[in-house]
C-alpha cells in the first residue's frame, strides 16, 4: 500500500489532536532537572534528524541505510539532508528488501561499521525478523564477544495516522523477548534526540521504535553543551502522583498525561511513568513508583495477549505484591489485526478506556 503518511497527512493528523495533547508534551510535564542549558523547540522528526547528523559527524564509521533514506530523506524525512551532508557512501538507499537491509547491516558491523538501518514501517520489519533474531541478536554471543553488533535499527512504529495496512504495528513484545537485543522508544522530541544519540553510540544492537504519530509534535530539546546531564537509562516519571501509576511508552505517554489531567480534576493524582526502555525494563523504577502509589495501569497499543503489558504487570506484581491494592490493569489494543483508519480510534486505547481501567483499579475490593 502506498505511504499515505508523510508531511501533509501527518500535519492533518496533528490537527485532530487536542490542544491539551500538544501542551502536555511541554517541559513542565516532562521535568528534566538534570537537563540545564540551551533548549530549542523542535519536532521529534527534527530532533531525530539532528541526533543522526551529530552521530554521523562524531563517528565516521556510522552509516545510514534503508529504503528511500537517501535523496528522499525517508518517507518521514528523518534522514532529510543527510545524504547531501555525509555523501552517498555513508547514507545510501538499498533495494527493497528488509531481510537484505538487516543481513547487510550484520556484515557491515562485522567489518567494523556502525550501521543505522531504517525499516520504512513497523509492519515491514517482519521480513527481517529472521536476521534480527538469529543474527543481529546473536552474533556477539555466537562469536564470544569478538563480533559486536552495534546496529541501531530505526523503526517508525505504532498506529494513529490512518495509514494503510501494516503501517500501524507495535512490535515491542516480540523484540523484548529476543535475547541480545535492547529496545527503546522515545515519547517526545527531547527523549528522541537524546535516546537516539545514546542508542546509536552503543556497542549492542538497539531497536529504536519511533512513535510515528508524534513525529510532528514540537517540544523543547536540550541540545546545549551540558545536555550531558541527561540520563538516558531507565524509565522516567513524567508526572508525579500518589494514587496510581500509569505506565506507558511511545505515543501513549502523551495520552496518559491527558488522562492524568482529567483525573486530577476529580482529585485523583496519577503518576505517569514513561517506561522508555522496553528491554531492559526498569524494574526498580516501576517498583519505586508503585511502592508509593500502590496501584498501576499499563497502557499499550499492541494486542493484549502476550503483549509487553503482561511483562510490566508481572514485574510490578513480583516486586510490590505485598503492598499492591489491586491487580495491575492492562489497557491495550485488542487481540485483532490492527484495523483500518476508520476503526483505529476504537482499537488504540483512548482516554475513556484508560479512565475505565483506572476506575476498575481504584474501585477494586478484594473479593
Amino acid at each position, binding site marked *: *500500500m*502506498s505511504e499515505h503518511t508523510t508531511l501533509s497527512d501527518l500535519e492533518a493528523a496533528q490537527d485532530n489532536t487536542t490542544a491539551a495533547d500538544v501542551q502536555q508534551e511541554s517541559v513542565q510535564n516532562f521535568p528534566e532537572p538534570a537537563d540545564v542549558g540551551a533548549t530549542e523547540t523542535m519536532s521529534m522528526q527534527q530532533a531525530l534528524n539532528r541526533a543522526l547528523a551529530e552521530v554521523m559527524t562524531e563517528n565516521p564509521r556510522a552509516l545510514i541505510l534503508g529504503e528511500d533514506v537517501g535523496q528522499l530523506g525517508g518517507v518521514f524525512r528523518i534522514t532529510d539532508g543527510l545524504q547531501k551532508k555525509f555523501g552517498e557512501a555513508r547514507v545510501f538507499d538499498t533495494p*527493497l528488501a528488509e531481510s537484505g537491509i538487516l543481513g547487510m547491516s550484520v556484515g557491515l558491523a562485522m567489518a567494523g561499521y556502525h550501521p543505522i538501518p531504517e525499516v520504512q514501517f513497523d509492519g515491514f520489519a517482519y521480513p527481517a525478523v529472521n536476521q534480527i533474531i538469529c543474527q543481529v541478536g546473536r552474533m556477539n554471543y555466537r562469536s564470544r564477544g569478538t563480533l559486536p553488533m552495534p546496529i541501531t535499527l530505526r523503526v517508525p512504529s505504532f498506529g494513529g495516522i490512518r495509514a494503510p495496512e501494516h503501517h500501524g504495528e507495535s512490535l515491542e513484545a516480540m523484540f523484548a523477548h529476543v535475547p541480545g537485543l535492547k529496545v527503546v522508544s522515545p515519547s517526545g522530541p527531547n527523549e528522541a534526540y537524546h535516546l537516539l544519540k545514546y542508542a546509536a553510540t552503543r556497542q549492542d544492537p538497539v531497536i529504536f521504535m519511533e512513535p510515528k504519530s508524534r513525529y510532528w509534535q514540537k517540544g523543547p530539546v536540550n541540545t546545549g553543551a551540558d545536555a550531558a546531564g541527561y540520563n538516558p537509562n531507565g524509565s522516567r516519571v513524567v508526572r508525579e502522583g500518589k494514587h496510581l501509576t500509569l505506565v506507558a511508552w511511545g505515543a501513549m505517554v502523551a495520552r496518559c498525561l491527558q488522562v492524568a489531567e482529567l483525573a486530577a480534576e476529580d482529585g485523583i493524582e496519577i503518576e505517569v511513568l514513561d517506561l522508555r526502555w522496553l528491554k531492559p525494563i526498569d524494574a526498580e523504577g516501576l517498583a519505586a513508583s508503585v511502592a508509593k502509589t500502590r496501584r498501576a495501569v499499563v497502557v499499550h497499543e499492541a494486542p493484549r495477549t502476550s503483549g509487553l503489558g503482561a511483562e510490566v504487570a508481572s514485574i510490578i506484581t513480583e516486586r510490590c505484591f505485598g503492598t499492591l491494592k489491586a491487580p495491575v490493569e492492562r489497557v491495550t489494543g*485488542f487481540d485483532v489485526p490492527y484495523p*483500518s483508519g476508520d476503526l483505529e480510534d476504537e482499537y488504540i486505547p483512548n482516554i475513556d478506556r484508560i479512565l475505565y481501567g483506572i476506575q476498575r483499579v481504584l474501585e477494586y475490593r478484594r473479593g
Partner: protein
Amino acid sequence: MADVLALDGTGRAELAGEELRELYRLMVAVRYLDESAIRWQRQGLIPGYAPQLGQEAAQVGSGYALDMSRDFVFPTYREMGVARAVGVDMVEYMSTHKATWHGGLYDPKASRFAPIQAVVGGSVLHAVGWAHGQTLDGTPAGELGVAITYFGDGASSQGDVHEAMNFAAVMKAPVVFFIQNNGWAISVPTERQVAGGSVAARAAGYGMPSIQVDGNDVVAVAQATAAALAHARAGKGPAVVEAMTYRRGPHSTSDDPGRYRTLEEERADGGEDPLARMRARLLADGIADEAFFEEALAAAKAEEEQIRAGINALGPRPGTEMFDFVYQEPTQALKAQASAWREESEHV
C-alpha cells in the same frame, strides 16, 4: 523490447475492432477514476491514494487477457486498473483508500481478485500456492485456471519473489508473474533496484519463459499476457511478463517526487502516454472517431460520479467487525474483549 525466451502459442488471436474499442473505454474509465481519486484525496474525501497514472495500458491490457471464469488475480496496491478491467466493484475496491477496510470491501472470492496487499511482494507466493492447487484437482492441462500476480520493480528485490519463482518453476505451477516495471520504487530508480536491469531476464535462470513488453502499448500487453496465460494454462508451468512502463505520478498522494526527479526527467523518461497512443492508433486505423472518444469519456465521468457517490456514502464499519472476522471459530477470550469494548465504547 523482446522475448527473453520465446513463449510458444500466442493464446489469443489478433485483437479486432470492438475489442480494441473496449480496451480504450477501459483505459479512459481507469484514467478518469484515477485522476479523480487524487482530487478526492485533496478534497478530504479519502485520506490517501496510490495513483496508477501511466500504467493504464499495462493494467487494462493484462486484465483484459484474463479468463475470469477460471483465473485469479493477486494484486499489490496499485492495481486499480486491473480491478476495473476484470469487473471488481469499484466502490468496494476504492473503500480501502477511504480507510474503511484494509484490503477492500469487495468479496475477493466471488471477484476472483485477492484482497489489496500492502506488503510489497507479499502475495506473490499466494499466487503460486493457488496455482499449484489448480493442478491437484484433476483439471486437464489446457483448461487450468491461472494465477496472475502483479508486482513492481521494487518488489522484485524481495526474497519472497525469488522463492515464488523457484517454487513455481520447480512445481510447474500455472502462474503468470506480471511485473509492472514503472521505473521507480518510491524514490529509488530501477537501475539501483534491479541488478541486471530486467526482471524478465531473471526468468531464464529458473528455466522459465519470459517476455519483456512495451507496457505502454495496451495491445502488446494484452497479447503478451495472453501468450503467458496460454503457456501456463496448458500445464507448461509459469511464465514472466515484464511490462516496461512509467509511474507518471507521485508514488502516492503523500509523496513529493520533486525531491528525487525533475519534471524534465519525468517528461523524458515517461515516454508516450499510453492513452494518447491508443487513441492515435484507433484513429489511424479507423476503428474509432471523435464521437466514440467523447462517448467513452462521458461514460467514464458518469461512472466516476457513481463511484464517488458510493464512496461518499460509505460510513465507517461498525466496530464489532474488528472482532467478527478474526476467526472462523471465535474464541471466548476474544468474545470477552468484544463485550468489554462494546461496554466501554458505548458507555453502557
